[in-house]
Every structure is written in structure tokens, then in C-alpha cells.
């Protein structure tokens, strides 16, 4: 499997009066054509920042300190803004959590969709219209009804479909979907994720799905990468991560999320404490204050992200991994 996008050691920091604070600290990931990678984390974990870094959209005062992101053999982080802008939209697209923010409130859906084609493909508005209609049909909307509508006239689920249609209009090779369903009800959530999967299969699009909901993305992603405090803690095939998680954070997350299976029993297993403030992350492994296995070493050193034995691509960043593997093997 060759990667369509390979991002290496992304590092983003914030300049403050007290000094430089790392927000993203050496995050790497790769995604192949037709594959879905889920980046999972809580607020402040760096999951959205990872996508923004690759797309060249990191807002000041944040600054990209290091990293490379190879897309079709070109390093996106070194590309001139002009070329990057041409790639965004045509080859790289992003769908945000709140489609209202992505849609212009004063333009009809038709105008917003045709404009993309006018700018990127130099089509006339008339020539662009059938393409816009087809894009809406593809996401399950009726073009006659939706083309003439303004964003506020549509429901939340319909707006997110319009945003997806717009993102996919130019057949991007890679789509970032940043919490695309968090604002939606459960049944719409499933519909939108299923739609993304169907479009991906049809066109071979690579998808990076960004989410806080590990249980939900495990159903839709091929691989899952868990971020905490700006670092990758664990990554593996979705089923492996869900069924045999190794990192204490991943394990804690899965154990503390109520499910529809089994007998509920109190107290629910809970992770103590809360995710750290990105401006005051603990030294060593950032999870150590909440970790049941933390030792003196965890408080002092950052555990490296290491692969388990080949051929597995299961990786985890924890000093206790050998012990956990032994326990599991027994």
C-alpha cells in the first residue's frame, strides 16, 4: 500500500510571553487512496490542528515549527501559497463540523456550487449548473428543490450534505472531514457517514475522519490513530484498536464509554482527572497524571511511539507495553 499523503513529525507551537508552547509534537500519519483514517482525540488533543497543518491553514499566532507532508511526492509544507491554494479544493478538501460556517448565508446553493467550478475549472455559470445538480443528487438531495435554496432554508443534515457535495465537486483525492456529524442527530450521523463511505468507494477518495467519538468511528474507519495532548498515543487497524487496545488511555476511553451491551454497573470505570490544558501539559507522558500504570519513568520521559512485532502495524507510545502484552498473551 503506497500512501497518498504521508505526514511526518508535524510540530506546531504557540509563541507566548513565557516562551514557545508546543501544541502538536511530532505527529505522523499516512493515508492511502480509498482508505479512511480516523484521527481521534478530545478537545486540545491536536486532531484538528493536524489537518490544518497539512492544508497550510494554521492560523497565527500558531506556527508550524517542523514537519513534512508529502502529497504526490511534493511537500505541502514547503509549497508556495499559490500552488497550495490550487491544490486545496481541487485535490485536497475539508468539511467542517458546522456547515453553516462553510456556506455563504447570502448565496443560493446553486451560486455557491457553480462558483467553485467557475474559479477552479473556468466553466461558465451555465455550464456549471448541471455539474452542481449532479453533485447534489450524489449526496441524496433533490437538485430542483435545493439549488435555489439559501443555507438557512435547509435542515442541519441537508446543509452538511451540501457542504460535502461542495467539497467533492472537484473530485478531490483526499478529503478531511472534521467532526462532520457532531452537530447531527444519531440517525443523520449514520446517514452522513454512510454517504461518505459510498462516495469514497465510488471515487477512490482518501478520507481523514476527525472525531472525538472512538466507538462511532471504529465502525467507519479502516485505521484509527488516537491523539492525546498533541502526540499520537496509539494507532492500529480499526478492529484491532477497538477489540484489543493497548494504550492505557485508549483502554480507559473504551471502558468508560457506556455501550448498549452488557449489564450497566456502577461505578462506571472512569478515567480520573481531565485532559490537560494545552498551555500547561505535564512533563513526560502527558497522560501520566491520569494513568493507573504511571511510574517515575513516565513522569520524566516521553515514551516513543513504537511498533509491535511485524506484520502488525499496531503502534503505541507507552513504557508499560511489554507488560501489557505479556498479560494479554496469558
Amino acid at each position, binding site marked *: 500500500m503506497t500512501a497518498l499523503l504521508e505526514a511526518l513529525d508535524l510540530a506546531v507551537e504557540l509563541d507566548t510571553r513565557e516562551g514557545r508552547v508546543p501544541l502538536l509534537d511530532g505527529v505522523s500519519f499516512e493515508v492511502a487512496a480509498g482508505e479512511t483514517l480516523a484521527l481521534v482525540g*478530545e478537545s486540545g488533543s491536536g486532531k484538528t490542528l493536524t489537518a490544518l497543518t497539512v492544508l497550510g491553514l494554521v492560523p497565527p499566532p500558531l506556527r508550524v515549527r517542523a514537519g513534512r507532508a508529502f502529497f504526490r511526492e511534493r511537500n505541502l509544507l514547503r509549497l508556495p501559497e499559490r500552488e497550495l491554494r490550487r491544490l486545496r479544493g481541487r485535490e485536497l478538501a475539508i468539511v467542517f463540523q458546522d456547515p453553516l460556517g462553510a456556506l455563504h448565508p447570502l448565496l443560493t446553493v446553486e451560486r455557491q456550487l457553480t462558483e467553485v467550478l467557475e474559479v477552479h475549472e473556468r466553466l461558465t455559470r451555465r455550464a456549471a449548473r448541471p455539474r452542481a445538480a449532479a453533485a447534489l443528487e450524489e449526496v441524496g438531495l433533490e437538485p430542483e428543490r435545493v439549488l435555489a435554496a439559501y443555507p438557512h432554508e435547509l435542515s442541519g443534515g441537508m446543509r452538511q450534505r451540501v457542504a460535502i457535495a461542495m467539497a467533492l465537486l472537484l473530485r478531490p483525492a483526499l478529503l478531511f472531514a472534521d467532526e462532520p456529524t457532531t452537530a447531527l*442527530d444519531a*440517525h443523520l450521523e449514520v446517514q452522513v457517514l454512510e454517504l461518505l463511505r459510498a462516495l469514497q468507494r465510488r471515487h477512490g477518495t482518501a478520507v481523514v475522519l476527525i472525531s472525538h467519538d472512538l466507538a462511532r468511528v471504529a*465502525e467507519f474507519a479502516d485505521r484509527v490513530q488516537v491523539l492525546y495532548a498533541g502526540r499520537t498515543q496509539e494507532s492500529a487497524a480499526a478492529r484491532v484498536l477497538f477489540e484489543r487496545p493497548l494504550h492505557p*488511555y485508549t483502554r480507559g*476511553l473504551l471502558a*468508560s464509554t457506556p455501550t*448498549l451491551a452488557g449489564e450497566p454497573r456502577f461505578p462506571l470505570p472512569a478515567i480520573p482527572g481531565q485532559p490537560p*490544558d494545552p498551555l500547561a501539559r505535564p512533563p513526560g507522558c502527558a497522560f501520566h497524571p*491520569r494513568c493507573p500504570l504511571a511510574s517515575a519513568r513516565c513522569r520524566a520521559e516521553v515514551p516513543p511511539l513504537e511498533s509491535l512485532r511485524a506484520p502488525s502495524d499496531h503502534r503505541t507510545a507507552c513504557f508499560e507495553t511489554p507488560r501489557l502484552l505479556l498479560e494479554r498473551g496469558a
Partner: protein
Amino acid sequence: MSAPLLVVSALTKLYPRRRTAPFRPPPPPVRALAEVSFTLAPGEALGLVGESGSGKSTLARCLVGLEVPTSGSIRLGDEELVGRSPRAWRALRRRIQLVFQDPSASLDPRQTALASVAEPLVIHRLGKPRERRVRALELLESVGLAASQAGHYPHELSGGQRQRVGIARALALAPELLVCDEPVSALDVSVRAQILNLLHELQERLGLALFFIAHDLAVVRALCTRVAVLHEGRVVELATREELFARPQHAYTRGLLGSAPRGR
């Protein structure tokens, strides 16, 4: 079974709509709640599930007097809540309290945790200042906050800690019923179980009744022994947890269960 604490009968809430053109009759009102009926026993945890727009929050707001129902009745013990004056509601709030979804929006940003929790005692003129302070510190401790955090302002606390303050404030007047409107959905995933454990512990320790509103079925299943399903303002199903999750009767409930993430 003991006498119910709360009896809601045929509760209806209509929102009138404005006419769309002069001389034309206005469109029919929006029916946010339609003939909603259920009971809740003292110390019971009753769940309410439904999607956005189903009327969940309208129901919560009617129960605590923030919204006036169009018709129907809400009885708390032997008192009728519908049609009471704002003045009467002030006394009633000692018995029934609301925990909001987003504690960063419901707490006063200029009040410390201690002041937020003590405020209901001040409003109801309960105790002397020193006693209020002691009581507020006790309440903060009972929801798992340290005395050192009592002087913190909301922005100095994490989301989970703010929700703890929200719960402590709701408990200040020792209510019999806590209405919780999506109390964990704004919190980080790794913090949700802590708050669910706290609510369960308070229910057991204080004999508190919970009316727990959520869109997340697994969360409701963990905490509540009976569950009502609200759809387009109507209770379409009301059953014990075991029945509802094993044999959902209504098509809408089956749809809800079908779109929840599956367990491991």
C-alpha cells in the same frame, strides 16, 4: 410502589406562529409537546430520549417553570406546578432543580465556584453568611471539588469541574428532583463517566429523583431504570430499561437503537 413524586398529565405546549401575509390566518401553531404523560417515583431515575427538535428541552423547561405549558398538569407531590405565579415558583424551586447542558453558559463568569453554589441560599435567605459558606464548601466537596477550587472562576475550571459546580448549585436547596438536560454531552469523552458516577452516587446517597434527558441511548441505559422516548412532542414509548432495550415496541425507538454505535 410508593406514591409518585411527579405526575405529568396531558402536558401540551404550543408555540403560535405569526401570520405570513396580512389578512391571511396565521399558520397552525407548532406543537412542541402533545399530551405528554408520565410519573416519576421518589428516588427514581427516569430517562428521556429523543432527537433534537423532539421537545426534550421544552419539557425540561416546563418542569422547572422556565416555560409555561399551554395545557395539562404537572403535580409535584400534592402541589400543582402549572399556572403558578413566578413568586410561587421561587418556593417550588427548592424542590425541583435543573442541571444545564453547558455549564460554561449557565454559570456567571464573574462568580467564584463558592459564590455560585451559595447564591441559591442567599436568594432564599437560608442561614447566616458563615453558615452558607460552610454549606457551600460541603456541597462542593460532595461533588468532588477540593476546597482549594472554591475560589476559582468558571474560566479557571475545566468543563467537567464546571459541570460539578452546576450540580452542586442545583443541590444547594436540597431538592427532591433534579432535571438534567443533556448534562454530559458538552463534556470531554474521558470525563463523562465521572459525572455519570457522581449523579448515580447522589441519587443513592440523597434519595434524589433524576429526570435525565439525553440523546445518547447508552448513557441513559447506564443510569436510568425506566426510559421514555419522545418523538415530535409525543411520548411514543415508556418502558423499563430491560424491556425497552431488549424489545423496543415503537418503530421510532427501533430506529434510534439501530443508529447507536454498537457495543464491543
